Every structure is written in structure tokens, then in C-alpha cells.
């Protein structure tokens, strides 16, 4: 007798090019089959009208443990993830202490295992203490479980160090993820530089801050023959540069955060610090360029840049508020707008949150292949609900979508064949 049968759902598994109404059955925590199931099951989930897909992967997440657990910890972050249908999170290393040492990689992985809700795959720091001057022991970090390297939160600003980081990492095939921001251009800025920043009377961050850093990095990537990934791409110029680099055969990839394809700088016109992030929300032209990048495949991955902050760090005026918004619980409904708007077919959209990040980071997750861990997301693409920030699983309340109607809701999340989230409740 099989353990769990998920029946009647529209099964979408981009890695295996599956998109059909059929069954998924699970034995000993693993996917035992996708297709037509005959037999008995201990538990049956009727997924009629729902979409069944691999558990989502979010390759850009900031949890604040160790160091700032009042903002978020691995437990609250894991709960937020599974509430959003996400079963694998890749966490950025800008914790306190930062993830620049094998011991800390092992520590955060162990903590996530103990909680048992989702996989945590840490991204190691490129430079020690994120200072941008000395390389971390990437081989050692990789062996301990780091899946890529980034100083995210900050750029690897020093061109010479970035060159060495790309060369060293590419000697072993590792991916470098860059927070592309030329600080000499963006220093002191809070929002995109433009008509909005002028009206608000706050200092802006020019789009060239992002674009010039990417231009520099692409040149260095070419020389090093490296694997370079632009985090949270937000501008038209940046998307064009990545597209050109890909056409030239360079191993340049990128990801977009839902807020950058869903919102524009107009969100901050009321001084709303919950729409302040880096890179900032930009113009409609930039937003459409990001959408086009998603449509034509230049942008292969959707990732949230989930960045929880404490109220105190956000309620202090736009100029001094911390950068970042939470995203784990809104990734799926916001992204589904791309399908509803006809930008992407459902299978391609799901691929950007499952198979594509898995491939980029060489993760075993992201598909319903037989024998894979049964990490599964089951959602209703049409169900509407009101986002109330007080009900978020994340400790962070900083979301621009508070009070808005979201379309698309996660009904079940399974991890290793266990239901860990069911109809609004976390199951431990």
C-alpha cells in the first residue's frame, strides 16, 4: 500500500516535461510514480482543480539566524517558506557572524534539518566577513554544503578581488552571485533616481549603479570563463547586458524578484518604507524589460530576495529605513500574474521556481522524478485571499502587498513525503 496518493490534480513537472491531469504517489518519503495509480493508499489528497508541482526553490533568501533572530530565524523562515509552497531555500551569507566558514555552513544546515520543514542550502560568502578583500575557502565551504558564493547585501566592489573570485571559483565550477551595485553611485540613495525621487525629495539610486557593475563583471567573467549570476535584476539596461552576454556564449545568468516585475517606483510615492529595497523598484519601462527577460528566457529564475526586518528598522522615515521586503509567502501568487497576463505558460513559470534554479545550483530538488524526495507544492491558482501582514509566518511584516487581494493559494506543502503545510496550518 502506498503512503500518500495525490489524485485528480494538474501535475506540472517541468524537468520531466509533464503537464497533465494525473496521479502522484509517494512511498517512503520519495516520489514512487507519476501517472495512473491503481491500488490502495494510506492517505489520499484530492487535488481536483489544483496544480501539483515540485516543491518550489527560492535561491535568494535572507534568514537572520545566526545573529539577528528577532528579525527572522531559521524556524520562522522555514514556516514562511512552506506556507509559500517553497521546500528548498538558499540562504544568503550576510548573517552575524556571516557564512564565511565551514562551521557556520554546517550549523545552519543542521538547524534547518532539526526543524525539518524545508531544505536549507546555504550560499557561502565570496570574501571573509563580507569585507571584499580576502577570499573565503570556497573549496572547504563547498564541501560542507555551500551551493554558490555571494556577498549579497553588498557587492564584491573591488574589481581586482572580483576578478580573483571569478577565477578561483571557475577553477572548480562554482557559481558567483553578485549583488550588482556600484556604491560610489548609489551612496545615500533610498529609491530609484528619477521623477519619483525628485518629487519625494529623497536621494535616488541611479540605474547606472546596477548597470555599470554588471558591465564590469561581464568583462571579468569573459576573461575568467566563469559562472556569473546577477542577483535580483531590476533594470532594462541590466537585462539587455545579460541577454547580450548570453548570446556571446558567456555563462551569465540572472534572477528576478517578484516585486521587480510586479511593482514600480510609484509604490514609494507615499513614503512607504515597505516598498524600499535594493535594487529599488524602478520605472514601468524597467519593469516591462524584466518581464520581457522572463518571457524570452534571459531571466531563468524567479527568487524572492526575502529580507525580513524588524518594525523599528522600517518605521523611521523612508531615507533611514532598512532595505528589503519579505517574499516567501507572496512569491507564488505574485508570479502567477505572469501566467494570467499571458507572459508565460504555466509550465515555464513553474520551471523558473523549480527546475531552473535546481539546474543552476546542481541541486537534487526541483523535479518529480521517480525516487526523488517527495517535496511537493499543491496550489489553487485561482483562489483569492487578502494579505494581512499580521498573519505572515515570517517574523518580518515588511511587505508592500499588505491589504491587497492575492490570487493563488498554496493548499498543501509536502516535504520528504510528509504534509508540512495544509490549508493554512503548519504541521510538524
Amino acid at each position, binding site marked *: 500500500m502506498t503512503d500518500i496518493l495525490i489524485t485528480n490534480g494538474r501535475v506540472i513537472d517541468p524537468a520531466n516535461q509533464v503537464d497533465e491531469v494525473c496521479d502522484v504517489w509517494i512511498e517512503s518519503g520519495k516520489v514512487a510514480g507519476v501517472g495512473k495509480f491503481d491500488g490502495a493508499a494510506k492517505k489520499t489528497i484530492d487535488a481536483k482543480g489544483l496544480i501539483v508541482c515540485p516543491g518550489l526553490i527560492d535561491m535568494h533568501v535572507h534568514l537572520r539566524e545566526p545573529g539577528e533572530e528577532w528579525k527572522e530565524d531559521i524556524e520562522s523562515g522555514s514556516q514562511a517558506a512552506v506556507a509559500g509552497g517553497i521546500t528548498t531555500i538558499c540562504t544568503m551569507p550576510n548573517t552575524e557572524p556571516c557564512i564565511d566558514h565551514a562551521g557556520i555552513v554546517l550549523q545552519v544546515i543542521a538547524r534547518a534539518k532539526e526543524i525539518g520543514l524545508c531544505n536549507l542550502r546555504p550560499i557561502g560568502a565570496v570574501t571573509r566577513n563580507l569585507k571584499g578583500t580576502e577570499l573565503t575557502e570556497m573549496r572547504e565551504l563547498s564541501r560542507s554544503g555551500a551551493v554558490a558564493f555571494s556577498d549579497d547585501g553588498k557587492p564584491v566592489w573591488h574589481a*581586482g578581488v572580483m576578478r*580573483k573570485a571569478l577565477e578561483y571559483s571557475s577553477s572548480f565550477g562554482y557559481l558567483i552571485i553578485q549583488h550588482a551595485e556600484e556604491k560610489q553611485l548609489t551612496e545615500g540613495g533610498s529609491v530609484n533616481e528619477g521623477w519619483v525621487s525628485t518629487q519625494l525629495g529623497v536621494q535616488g539610486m541611479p540605474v547606472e549603479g546596477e548597470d555599470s557593475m554588471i558591465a564590469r563583471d561581464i568583462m571579468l567573467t569573459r576573461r575568467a570563463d566563469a559562472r556569473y549570476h546577477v542577483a535580483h535584476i531590476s533594470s532594462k539596461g541590466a537585462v539587455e547586458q545579460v541577454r547580450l552576454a548570453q548570446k556571446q556564449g558567456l555563462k551569465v545568468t540572472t534572477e528576478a524578484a517578484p516585486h521587480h516585475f510586479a511593482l514600480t517606483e510609484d509604490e514609494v510615492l507615499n513614503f512607504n518604507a515597505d516598498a524600499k529595497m535594493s535594487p529599488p523598484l524602478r520605472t514601468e519601462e524597467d519593469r516591462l524589460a524584466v518581464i520581457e527577460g522572463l518571457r524570452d528566457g534571459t531571466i531563468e529564475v524567479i527568487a524572492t530576495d526575502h529580507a525580513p526586518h524588524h518594525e523599528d528598522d522600517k518605521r523611521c522615515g523612508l531615507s533611514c529605513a532598512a532595505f528589503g521586503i519579505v517574499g516567501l509567502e507572496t512569491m507564488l501568487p505574485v508570479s502567477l500574474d505572469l501566467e494570467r497576463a499571458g507572459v508565460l505558460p504555466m509550465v515555464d513559470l513553474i520551471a523558473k521556481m523549480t527546475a531552473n534554479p535546481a539546474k543552476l545550483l546542481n541541486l537534487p530538488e526541483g523535479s518529480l522524478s521517480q525516487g526523488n524526495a517527495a517535496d511537493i507544492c499543491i496550489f489553487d491558482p485561482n483562489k483569492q485571499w487578502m494579505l494581512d501582514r499580521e498573519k505572515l509566518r515570517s517574523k518580518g511584516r515588511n511587505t508592500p502587498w499588505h491589504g491587497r487581494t492575492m490570487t493563488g493559494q498554496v493548499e498543501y506543502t509536502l516535504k520528504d513525503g510528509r504534509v508540512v503545510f495544509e490549508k493554512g496550518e503548519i504541521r510538524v
Partner: protein
Amino acid sequence: MPKPLFGLKHLFGIGDLSREQITSLVNLGDDFIDINSRSIKKDATLRGRTVINLFFENSTRTRTSFEIAGKRLSADVINISASTSATKKGESLLDTGQTLAAMQPHVLVIRHSVAGTCEFLSEFLEDTALINAGDGSHEHPTQILTDLLTLKRSMGDIQGKTMTIVGDIAHSRVARSHMLAAKIMGYNVRIVAPKTLLPAFVENYGCEVFHDFDAALKGTDILYMLRVQTERLTTNCYFPSIREYHETYGLNMKRLKAAGDHCMVMHPGPMNRGVEIATDVADSMKSLILEQVEHGVAVRMAALTALCGGATEE
């Protein structure tokens, strides 16, 4: 002036030599090994000749090797090191060279941090033979002749054999000279390093490039470990730490065994034990490192002889 042998006026780099010239120098060095093991280590070959060791960079080992080589052949050897040299008083390299040449030595042996120093000086110093004892990251011909002599004595003909050079290729004159020598003498060179320690277009030397040391071991006959300049290289982000370097590119017994029983180990010295090479490997039966030092004297005797040991034209 004495007539040079083997058609050699100067010794700038391995890359300038023919296969015959290299073979002749190595064979002559081989002949001199005998003198070095006698109880009275003296020969009259260079009696009446003057050799000046002009070292702008510290290198006790190479300078001593040249000094002993000259003295064993009865030459008058003068050492001038950078700390006492006139250049500290603001004199140019050319002035120093010309001043010393005016005192009519037969050979100037020069070590300098600027690549091409010997080539530069040779345009102005007509009657003095010059030996490059290491110039910048360019060439170090007597080290490579030494290695070839050591290999000849330990494994015979090295044609078709594979030498794997590991470490800081970018700053290594030894690696560069070996890649040139390999082409002339018909052995293969593999180089192993992270990209941060490789010079641009290094594959144009015709060597195989590896980043994974373990992958390069199979089929290797000679493992040539380069010195790691620990402080300089970590602060410049060439690699993250000594520890990770040793893990990834250090030679330990396990790797030596994986290369196979026939594989021999070389190092140009001085070694960082526990960094590029583990102590048990350095001191093992497979290590040729002390032979390299010993044969260095013989090869430098050969080089000095080649440049000023022939019959004097009167």
C-alpha cells in the same frame, strides 16, 4: 678574451638555446659532478678568470651555488648584493653594469627582479659575458639545466616523459623556462593551479592546463612543486588560505602514491614544508630536491666554463 664554447656568448634563457646547446651544457655539468665529490674540489679550468655575482634580489642559494662553482674552477669570484650595491645610492642599473664591466670581469652573473635585465645590459657591455640567474617572472636557465641534469641521472632520457608543475605558474620563472625547455627537449609539461595563479594564454606554451591536481596525477613522471609566497599570495586573493591551498594543491604522500611508483618529486627551493609539499614527501626516497641543489653547482660550473673557459685568443 677566451673563446666561448657551444656557440654561447651569453646565457639569457633556455628559450634561446638549441637542443644541442642544452645537451652539451648538461653533459658538461655531468662531467663536473666528479670534481664536486673529490676531497680536493679544485680544477684549474677558470684560472685567471674573474666572475662577478651581481644580485639585486636576495637568493643565498643561487648566489652561493655560483660562487662555489666559480671557486672550484679557480676563478676569482666577487659577490655584490643589492643591499651594498651602488644602486641604493641612486646609481642606475646601467651605470652599475658599466662600472663593473669597466673593471674587466669575464662573466657577470645577474639576478634582478626586472625581466630582461641581461638582455638590456648586453647591448652596452660588449666584452662581458652575462648569465641570467633569474630575472623577474621570466627565465632561470641554470635552474632548468640543473633539473635536466638531475633527471638525466635519475631516469635517463626524459623524451616523452611528463612533468607536472604545480602552483604559482604566473610568477614562476622556473615554470616558464621549463615550458620552453619542454618544447626544445621533447618532454611534456602539465601545469596545475587555480586560474588565479595562471598567466594569460598559458596554453600557448603547448602545455596541458589542469585546475584539479588529482586529475593531473595519472601519467605524471615528474611532480615539480613550486614555492608559494604565502603572504603575498593570500593578501592578493590568489587563493583563500594556506590551509585550503595545501588541501587542494599541496603534495602529500597520498597524491604521490596516486601518481605511481615511478614518479619523482622536484622543487626549486626553498620549500615551505606543509604548504606546497609535505615533509614526508620532501624527505622521501622519491625526492630529488637535494640532488637538484648538488647538481646546481656542477651545472653552473658548466655554464661558466661555456662562457669563459675556452682557449684564450691572443
